[in-house]
Structures are given as C-alpha cells and as structure tokens.
C-alpha cells in the first residue's frame, strides 16, 4: 500500500469509531500476546512464592506459586495462534463450500446445503467435546481443526447467502455470455465483491474462536498442562477466586477485552459493508 493509501485509510478509520476502537484493542492485545514472553519479569514456570499469595509481581501468585502477571504475558501466544489459525481454516473451508453451492445452483446447491444444515444442528462446543472424549490430551493442531471445522458450516451459510446475491447480478451473466471460464468468473467477478461481508464474518468468527479456544482450556482440556495459557489459567486458579482473585480475573479480563475488540472490529466492518463502500 502506498503512503497515500495509508493516509486515506487512516482518515476513513477516523470516521468509523467502532472499527478504529476495535482494531486498536485487537492489535494491542495481539502485540501483548506476541511480545509478552520477553517482557515477563519471571519465567512462566518459575516459582516465586507460596501459592495464592500476593508475592511475586503486582498480580500475586497462582496455584503453584508462579507469578500471575508473567503467566498472563506468556499465555496469550497459544490462544492467539490457535484461534487465528482456526478462524482462517473455518473461513477458507466455509467460503469454498458456500461459493461453490451458490454458483453451481440446482441440485448440487441443494445437496450441499442440506448436509450443511445437518452440521449446523450441532452446537459448536459439543462437536469439540465429542472428539476430545476420544483423546487423553489434545494437541494444539487438533483444537485448530475442531474449532475451524465447527465454524465452516456457519461460514458456508453466510458465504452462500452473499454469493447468491452476486451470482444473480448481470455482470456475472455478462462474463458468462463472453465465455469466461467458471474459475475466472468465481475468482475475478464473484469473490472480490464478497470482501467486505466476509471480512466482517471473519472478525465475528475470530471472536467466537477466541471464546471457544479459551473455553476449552477453561473446561480443563489442556493441550500442554503446566504451560501458561489464558484459558487454562482460569481453570487452574478457579477454586481460589475468594482468596486470590487475580489468578482468575487477570486472564478473564484480557480474554474479555480481546473478544470485545474483535467484535467491535467485526461490527465496524459490517457497518462499512452495509454502506457499500467496502
């Protein structure tokens, strides 16, 4: 992007307070999650005092006597990586399903969307729990797959809805009358017009991904027991909420701020898209 492009984007953001706020919050939390481990005063597994006391740095210690603040700084990377990957996976799979169904139309569309409805009838968290029953300790990639695929049918429905509104427009018919290949019609005519609503959907899906990934940790299904992770931290320190609330509240608050940021961002994009300027 050129310098002028950056300037005009900044100006447009200024007129979209929600999008701007959401973007700033999301970026700040993401930066903390990424560079946090280097800023932490203590190591993530370093014992700095007795469990559940206010020793260590300002947020006190956790169930093993580790420093809560250091673990908050160290524990965002895994959630960020897992939820962003899961969102990307869910978006790609969902968009492919939705756009193919909408563009193909007829019985193929019908068949794909019926199957999709079946997948939709399953609450997202249930799907994840079903698979987790079968494994003792889930790997991180497994969580990515579980969360990603549980998004796919929802993304597919949105993508199909958006695509249906585009494939029925005359510029798509016009490309077909010229004899453009089907792939080019999808890539050059249909997809570029779906940018804005899909971006909004991605923001929404990221919000849910963070909630689900952290939720799975909160329910106690740790991918790496002992490692710092915002979701797991809540579960580890939950019983001591009364004596040392920060062990629970600190990760809860960062997760909350993060999801509020991504949700504001998604809504801001949706607003832009609604005005047709996206």
């Amino acid at each position: 992007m050129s310098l002028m492009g950056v300037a005009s984007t900044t100006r447009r953001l200024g007129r979209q307070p929600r999008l701007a706020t959401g973007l700033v919050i999301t970026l700040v939390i993401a930066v903390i999650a990424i560079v946090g481990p280097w800023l932490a005063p203590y190591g993530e597994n370093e014992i700095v005092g007795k469990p559940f006391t206010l020793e260590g740095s300002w947020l006190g210690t956790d169930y093993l006597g580790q420093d809560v603040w250091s673990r908050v700084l160290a524990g965002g990377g895994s959630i960020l990586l897992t939820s962003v990957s899961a969102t990307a996976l869910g978006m790609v799979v969902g968009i492919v399903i939705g756009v193919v169904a909408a563009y193909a139309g007829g019985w193929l569309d019908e068949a794909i969307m019926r199957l999709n409805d079946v997948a939709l009838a399953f609450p997202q968290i249930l799907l994840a729990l079903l698979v987790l029953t079968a494994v003792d300790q889930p790997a991180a990639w497994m969580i990515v797959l579980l969360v990603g695929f549980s998004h796919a049918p929802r993304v597919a429905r949105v993508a199909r809805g958006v695509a249906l509104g585009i494939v029925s427009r005359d510029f798509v018919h016009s490309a077909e009358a010229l004899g453009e290949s089907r792939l080019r019609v999808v890539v050059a005519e249909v997809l570029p017009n779906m940018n804005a609503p899909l971006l909004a959907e991605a923001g929404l899906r990221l919000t849910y991904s963070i909630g689900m990934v952290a939720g799975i940790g909160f329910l106690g299904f740790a991918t790496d027991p002992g490692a710092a992770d915002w979701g797991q931290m809540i579960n580890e320190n939950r019983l001591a909420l009364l004596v040392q609330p920060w062990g629970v509240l600190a990760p809860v608050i960062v997760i909350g701020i993060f999801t509020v940021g991504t949700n504001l961002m998604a809504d801001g994009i949706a607003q832009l898209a609604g005005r047709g300027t996206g």
Partner: protein
Amino acid sequence: MTTVAGAGCTLTDLRVALTGSDVDVVDEIDIELRPGEVVGLVGESGSGKTTAGTALLGYARHGAVIERGSLVFEGQDVLAMSWEQVRPIRGMKIAYVPQDPGAALNPAIRIGRQIVELLELHGIGTAEERLAGARAGLREVGLPDDDEFLARYPHQLSGGQVQRVALAMAFLPRPKVLVLDEPTTGLDVTTQGMVLRTMAELCRSYQVAALYVTHDLAVVANIADRVAVMYAGRIIELGPREVMFSQPAHPYTRALLDAIPHLARARALTGIPGSTPGPGRRPSGCRFHDRCEYVQDRCRETEPRDVRVGQDHTAKCVRVGEIGSWDINRGNVADTDPHKERDIILTVEDLHVSYGRTEVVHGVDFDVARAEVVALVGESGSGKTTISRCIGGLHGEWTGAVTFDGRALGKGARARSVEERKRIQYIFQNPYLSLNPRLTIAQIVARPMELFGIARGRAARDKVVELLEAVALGPTVLDLRTDRLSGGERQRVAIARALAAEPDLLVCDEITSALDVSVQGSIVALLEDLRKTRGISMLFVTHNLALVRSIAARVQVLSAGELVESGFVVEVLDSPRHEYTRQLIGNSPTVA
C-alpha cells in the same frame, strides 16, 4: 374554471432542506390545486418532485425538514400546524397514493381491514357502514367486493389490483386534495391505462384537487389539466397542458420534449448533456445553466424569477421570449422504407423456450438484417426478454433454430464458438447491476479485447480510450470505478464494453428503461449513430411502443409468448392488424 372558496389548496414558497444543513431539496415551490383538476408534477430523478408532493401532507422523509412555506387549505395553514393538528387532516382531507403500492400496503394486514383502518381510527360510521363503504369503493375501481377479496393479503393481488386498492383506500374518506406519487410506475400499459382512467373519473366525480407526481411526460399529457415541470428542486415552468406541450417556454421543458419519442411519428431523439444535479450539487444562478444551450453570463449569476408567459403560464428563465419559438415537429425523421432490400444476418425459426417444465415462448419466428434495428415489444410476461436471452446465450433451454450468419447457434454461451460469442454482444437493462463494482472502467472495457485476442496491454488501453470517446465519455473516467458514474454514464460504459468485442449484433434488453428520459434520448441517438457508422445490427427489447418508432426499422409484437404481429414499424404502428396491437397502441400514453 371558477375556484370554489375553501376548496383546493395553495402551496406558497415551500422550502424543504436536509436536516441540519442549508442544502435544499426543493425551494420556492408555488402551486395552486383547484377542485376537480389534475396538476401533473413532472421531473427527472433527483428533481425533488416526490418531496414537493409529500410536503402537501405536511410530511418530510427522515433526514429532511420543511423549513419554510405555507399550505392554505380550507382557510388554514397546514404547514404551520402542530403535528397533532395535521394528523387528522392527513388521509381524511388530504390523501396520498403511494409510488409502489406493492411495498406500501402492509403485508401482514388483510386489505379489507387496511381500507377501513382510517375510518375506524376516527370512529366514523358503524362497522357495517365502513364495510359497505369499502365494498362500494372497490366496485368503483373495478375490483370484486366479496368477502373473499376483502380477506386477501396484499401479496395475493396483481400489481394493477394492488394499485386500485390503494386508490379505493385513498378515496374512501372523500378527501378534498389527493397526492399521487408515480402510482403507475412498473405497471404494463394496459393496466396503467385502466388505473389512470379510474383515477381521472374519481377525481372529477368527487371534485378532488389532485397532484399527479411522475417522471413520465406522456402520462401527464393524457391526464393532467395543468403541468408543472421540476428541475433541481424548482418548478421551472407551469402552465395549461395544451400550451405546455405546444409552446413550452423554458429551455429545459423544450429539451425534455425533444428527448421523448412519439408514437405517431419517428423522431431523431436528442438527450440533454450531463445529468440532473442532486441536492448539494446544484449550481448557482439558474440551476439549469450548465446544461442549457441558450446559456448567457447572466444565467450563471442571477436566480431567475417566475416570468409570466401567458394565461396561467409562467417560466423561471430570464431569456423567455428571446429564444424563439419551438416546434414539436422539428425532430421528425422519415420511417424506414418498407421496400428497402434486407440482408439477413440472424434468423429465428420456431423458437420454443422453457424454464423448467413451463414453456414460456411458443414457436416464434423472425429475422434481423445487417445494420437494422429490430424491436421486440410486449408487456411483462410476453417473453421478449426471454427470447433475447436465448439469442445472447444466457438461457439454454430452448428448441428451434437460431441461425447467425448462415450457421446454427449453440444453446448456451459455452456451447458456442469463440467467434460467435464475440460477434453477438448482450447489453443488460440495469447498468447498476451489469458492471462489476470492483473493477475500473478501463478493466471492464478492455476485458473482451483480451479475451478475444483483439488487443492487450497498452494497445488495449488506447482502444478503450477510443471506445469511450465513441460513447461520449472522456478518458478521465478510465481509472474510476462505476460507483462514481451516473446511470446514463454506466450504460455508456456497458455499450463500450459490448463494442470492444467488435460485434455484428447487439442484443439490447430494455437498456433505457432504468434511465431518465433525457438520458434515454442521448443513448438512443448514440445507438442510431453506431448502427450507421459501424453497420451493427440490433435486437432492441422494449415495452415502450413510442420508443420503437424512433429507433427500429421492424417490430415484433409479442403477447404471452406468441408473436401476434410483425412487420415494418411504419406499417404495424399506423395500420395495426391484430386486435392486441391495436389495444397496446390505444393504451400507450403519448404526447401528441
């Protein structure tokens, strides 16, 4: 005509502006409505005609506010009244018939209840009397009055029925003033004719003072007693109908009349350059000066006042009387000679088309010659667009033979050779949908050249500039996206894209129906020029018979999927043989 004291209404110095700004939507509107008289308020899109119309009910849409003006009705100023005082007048004394009754009737309420809603709210009459009134009203507009009909929901009625229900609803409380907002838009001419006649009868028999808001000069020419022409938020000319159509005084009125086609004779249509400026983009001085062919320096500086031209006739132009007289016959041209030799390029034989199991076109034959425009005319559902889509390769479910330049055409575009796809180009009705909003004009127009190997890169861009010039667009639009263009400009881009393939046949599907008349005029002039200079043949689909006379050499009249009459335009329109054609011609509103 004698004005009955206390009847009718007088609107003076109305100004409606966008909320919280000094941008006016309409300004300096003066108009008097007399009992038993229909005043036609004509304007192109963005002229503010609907805003002026709803102001008669003391109403402005969300985002606009009535800033100034008075509306004297029965001795009181309606615009000075409080919100609570105006409400009982609305509907009861001053009624409104909406533009799109399909959307304006509540989809969740049965029509019988909607018709009597207002009387019920005001507690007028007993339930039986109200019901009897509703039945009588439905009979008056030629609809059934039985319980089954009253119990229907709006979606169970046809377009014409819905519109007549809206008329019956508006007339039921016996209003003194009636505002009709383009109530026949989207109706077929036959239905439109019926609705217009019903409306005119009701207005006369109940001595209602009516304001008929429309973009269609031809409709006004048939029903109005007086005509007001709006441009960019002002009434620029107002006068009795006969005078307005024979001796228009304002350059804009004249240009509009030059742009509309006539059923009775072929005319070379001309457009007005540019487009109607919306609120906030209107020039100072005379608001028409930047598009006016008679413009002088003083037009740019001074705002023109109303100048009296004749009895009941005023115009807002400082040059009234200086610009000579106007003659409706100035643009006449000769019809195409029926004895001219024809060199056939496209033949359609026994064409049957279906959608799924339903056959919608039942055996149609016609042909198109080189450098000839053939019109397909019919009402909605006649199959005219369906036929054009088959020829354009957009619909493949047909049987019969379509021969193009000696070779049979495949069914869908993908079943045709590259050469055939290149030589037949399709132009769509709505330029807001037919151009990809994510691409620049240069990309859109260059694509067919790349695809068909005509030119690429630098050479393609040079050709794009040439083509844009040919459709009267400057090279400044090259790198813009379509959202920066007006409807007329977009349609020119669509034409340029079609020309980029260097076609021999253009299939034009109602390509002017989404555009204002002044823009339609210039598009038609452009097509005529392309036909002459490039020898392109055209299949021109339209519902507008008058337009056919100005653009086509031959015409095919379609009804319910069958060809009822075909031949040279001059023969079919001057001496129609089929009853349906005669009916269509009879119902088509026409200026002269």
